[in-house]
């Protein structure tokens, strides 16, 4: 997902959205509920008579922490005690649960969860608090202004009355919903800014957390689908006679995405698929190898691409004292979340219900209704926690939801179906981080000053041709080159170009999107240019920053400080630095590494992050640690490649390896204190790692890494 800046206008729109949510009448059934039903002041909060406060979380919990983060925002303004807080995934509902950064759409991505919820969730909590206080005032016959709330206890000092939330919840439900409850000032925060324990940790430590694959419905069949081995291929014909002989296989159906095998359990479905014989029609399929694709990309680069950013005349490079050039190549990447894609769908008497880790509920909701030819209100999507995503479940095409719906439809009867992708389906299944080439040129004058910078990028577009193309408003796909454009450094004349490549291979945002490759190309090349200019990597970067870039300067200076940066290689260890801003968050990292038999082994990473107000430092540190490990595993090992003829050469974790514990460096994170509006942390920890590693490796060995991964595994 591209960066969608949280502007003042965005926040105002957010407030309007909240008021809409707050003033929406509750469903009739709820209004007429018996007394024991929870107090629901708005769409986000349920307060039970047992004092529990449950927050309906409008963002998918996939490990990045919104159950905890959004609950913190509510609890802060509600003056709840952290121990009474609970979180639950909000169902698909485009009226109530939109992402305010996305416009009229419920969805998670672009590290926006905290940023777009910061005011909305606090207002929701403040409204609930005001209603509880009004209830207490009525019950005790005292002025509301004299009532205090602290850690889940409502008190009135003068009368000696006090109560938990639960006992007043029914009376609170009859109070007027305040339209614009006042919010605390930052100095009065009790919970925001503290290391609160995460709400989902216990369930995830004991095996009790409920994920999609753990859902079982009466009479449910498990379904696996034979997908075409080449992108763009379709089913020509199939023979299911052997598959139907497999014990437990109940039926086989052709669906738009392949051939579906339905069985009474997962293993039977997998065996049934193995026994299936399918002829594929490859006439529209991608048949090029990765090498052939790279050749065409390189040709497109030579033509310069369309100009997407320009400053002064890049012809200045012709007069430079020294010109440096480099070309960086990046492979397709699979997200490979540990929980493969899955979804449960149940169709009964003209209505459908789904359970899965749904990241774009609004798009999926429309898609499922369309496939099943039902009105949208007859389709309910329950959003469960997901075992990772990294962008994979944020599908502009809604292909997983569409496949689940197609399975239910093709069954030709009511029933429940669990769609399960295997790891092989996942690794071979596309929606990859786009394969990309960057071509860079920079010029120095006789004094070593950078006088010009050109960066041309060639890759496929993620947004063009998807349901979200409208976000581009007719312009080029910014997610393809974000991070090459918009740099904070003074680089003299500048030209950024983009060449759009085409292929039936499906592509998607992969944790930090364009920054996954632009961060590397820019920061690795800049390091080379600074070296040619005789400058230190840290001081050289600082010298390129205008005075106004205080936050950039802040993270670079901080990471230099905590890492004891002195620009030298020592004790057999190399050091490298990189800085990348993504999704509004500034991150600088310093990598320390050794040469272990020609392969970089990272021993320590220092990380400075400025994400505005640090809502939960514990989660921020976790996301930086995880982002660093995620980026490192990929930089060391991962690439999706195509053999001549167009088949993917990787299939599972043995040839698309994940980082293992012995490869994980120590990580030290410093969070910059800030009063700025909060920005996200799910993605921004990723981009600086690989270039900082490349820079440390070059400092240590002199080797320049122009192609990732460092130690790729080929099959």
């Amino acid at each position, binding site marked *: 997902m591209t960066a969608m800046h949280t502007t003042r206008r965005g926040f105002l729109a957010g407030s309007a959205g909240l008021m809409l949510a707050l003033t929406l009448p509750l469903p009739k059934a709820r209004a007429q509920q018996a007394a024991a039903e929870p107090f629901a002041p708005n769409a986000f909060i349920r307060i039970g008579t047992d004092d529990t406060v449950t927050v309906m979380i409008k963002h998918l919990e996939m*490990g990045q922490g919104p159950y905890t983060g959004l609950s913190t925002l509510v609890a802060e303004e509600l003056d709840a005690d952290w121990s009474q807080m609970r979180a639950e995934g909000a169902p698909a509902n485009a009226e109530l649960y939109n992402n305010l950064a996305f416009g009229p759409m419920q969805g998670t991505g672009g590290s926006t969860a905290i940023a777009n919820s910061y005011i909305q969730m606090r207002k929701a909590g403040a409204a609930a608090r005001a209603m509880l206080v009004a209830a207490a005032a009525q019950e005790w016959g005292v002025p509301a202004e004299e009532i205090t709330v602290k850690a889940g206890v409502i008190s009135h000092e003068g009368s000696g009355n006090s109560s938990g939330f639960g006992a007043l919840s029914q009376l609170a439900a009859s109070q007027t919903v305040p339209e614009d409850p006042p919010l605390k000032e930052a100095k009065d925060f009790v919970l925001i800014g503290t290391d609160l324990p995460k709400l989902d940790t216990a369930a995830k430590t004991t095996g009790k957390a409920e994920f999609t694959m753990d859902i079982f419905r009466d009479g449910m069949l498990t379904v696996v689908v034979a997908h075409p081995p080449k992108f763009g291929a379709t089913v020509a014909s199939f023979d299911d006679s052997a598959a139907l002989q497999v014990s437990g296989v109940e039926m086989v159906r052709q669906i738009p995405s392949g051939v579906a095998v339905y069985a009474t359990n997962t293993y039977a479905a997998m065996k049934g698929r193995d026994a299936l014989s399918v002829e594929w029609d490859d006439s529209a399929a991608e048949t090029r190898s990765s090498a052939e694709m790279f050749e065409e990309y390189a040709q497109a680069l030579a033509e310069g691409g369309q100009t997407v950013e320009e400053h002064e005349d890049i012809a200045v490079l012709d007069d430079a004292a020294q010109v440096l050039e480099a070309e960086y190549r990046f492979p397709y990447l699979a997200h490979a979340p540990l929980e493969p894609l899955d979804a449960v769908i149940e169709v009964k008497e003209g209505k459908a219900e789904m359970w899965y880790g749904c990241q774009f509920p609004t798009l999926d909701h429309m898609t499922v209704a369309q496939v099943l030819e039902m009105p949208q209100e007859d389709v309910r999507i329950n959003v469960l926690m997901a075992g990772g995503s990294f962008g994979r479940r944020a599908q502009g095409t809604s292909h997983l939801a569409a496949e689940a719906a197609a399975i239910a439809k093709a069954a030709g009867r009511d029933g429940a179906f669990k769609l399960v992708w295997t790891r092989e389906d996942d690794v071979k299944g596309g929606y990859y981080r786009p394969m990309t080439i960057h071509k860079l040129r920079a010029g120095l004058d006789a004094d070593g000053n950078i006088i010009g910078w050109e960066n041309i990028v060639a890759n496929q577009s993620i947004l063009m041709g998807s349901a979200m193309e409208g976000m581009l408003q007719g312009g080029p796909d910014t997610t393809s080159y974000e991070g090459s454009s918009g740099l904070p450094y003074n680089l003299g004349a500048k030209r950024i170009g983009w060449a759009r490549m085409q292929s039936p291979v499906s592509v998607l945002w992969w944790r930090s999107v364009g920054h996954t490759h632009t961060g590397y190309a820019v920061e690795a090349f800049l390091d080379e240019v600074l070296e040619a200019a005789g400058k230190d990597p840290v001081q050289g970067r600082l010298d390129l920053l205008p005075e106004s870039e205080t936050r950039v300067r802040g993270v670079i200076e901080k990471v230099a400080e905590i890492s004891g940066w002195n620009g030298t290689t020592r004790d057999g260890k190399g050091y490298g630095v990189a800085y990348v801003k993504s999704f509004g968050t500034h991150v600088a990292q310093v990598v320390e590494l050794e040469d272990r038999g020609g392969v970089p082994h990272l021993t320590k990473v220092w990380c400075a992050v400025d994400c505005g107000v640090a809502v939960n430092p514990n989660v921020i540190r*976790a996301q930086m640690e995880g982002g660093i490990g995620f980026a490192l595993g990929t930089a060391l090992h991962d690439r999706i490649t195509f053999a001549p003829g167009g088949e993917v050469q990787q299939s599972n974790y043995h040839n698309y390896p994940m980082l293992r514990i012995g490869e994980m460096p120590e990580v030290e994170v410093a969070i910059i204190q800030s009063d700025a509006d909060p920005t996200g942390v799910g993605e921004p920890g990723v981009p600086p790692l690989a270039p900082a590693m490349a820079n440390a490796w070059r400092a240590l060995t002199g080797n320049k890494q122009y192609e990732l991964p460092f130690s790729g595994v080929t099959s």
Partner: protein
Amino acid sequence: MTSFTVNGRDVDLDLDPDTPLLWALRDELRLTGTKFGCGVAQCGACTVMVDGMPRRSCVTPISMVEGGEVTTIEGMEGPEVKAVQAAWEAIDVPQCGWCQSGQVMSATALLQMVPNPTDEDINNAMAGNVCRCATYVRIRQAIHDAAKTLEG
């Protein structure tokens, strides 16, 4: 019919003997704490104890555990698993959580065999458990913390 015990309970399963233990546990016995990640013993999300030793249930056919004792995350008892889970919760190890049952099983098995593991011991014992969220810094810390708790 294949017979063994799961979490101390006798089970008799009328399934193909080649059925992986993973799917028998999940689909037949509804013990869903054990997770499917790869199916080829590469990720460790499906780790269970078979006769007290950690095994990848995705590549263990039920015929191989005939007469044996299987323990899943739901049935783990003893000071080691308690210390491991307490340490996991104290520093919030999990992110997405999908791999964590397997991590807890492997960490518990390590502490049962090596009460005070070095980083090297941890690297070796936990090498078969992938965490895609890369919670490894905290996994390592939590194992050391659990070892300290057990030392008393």
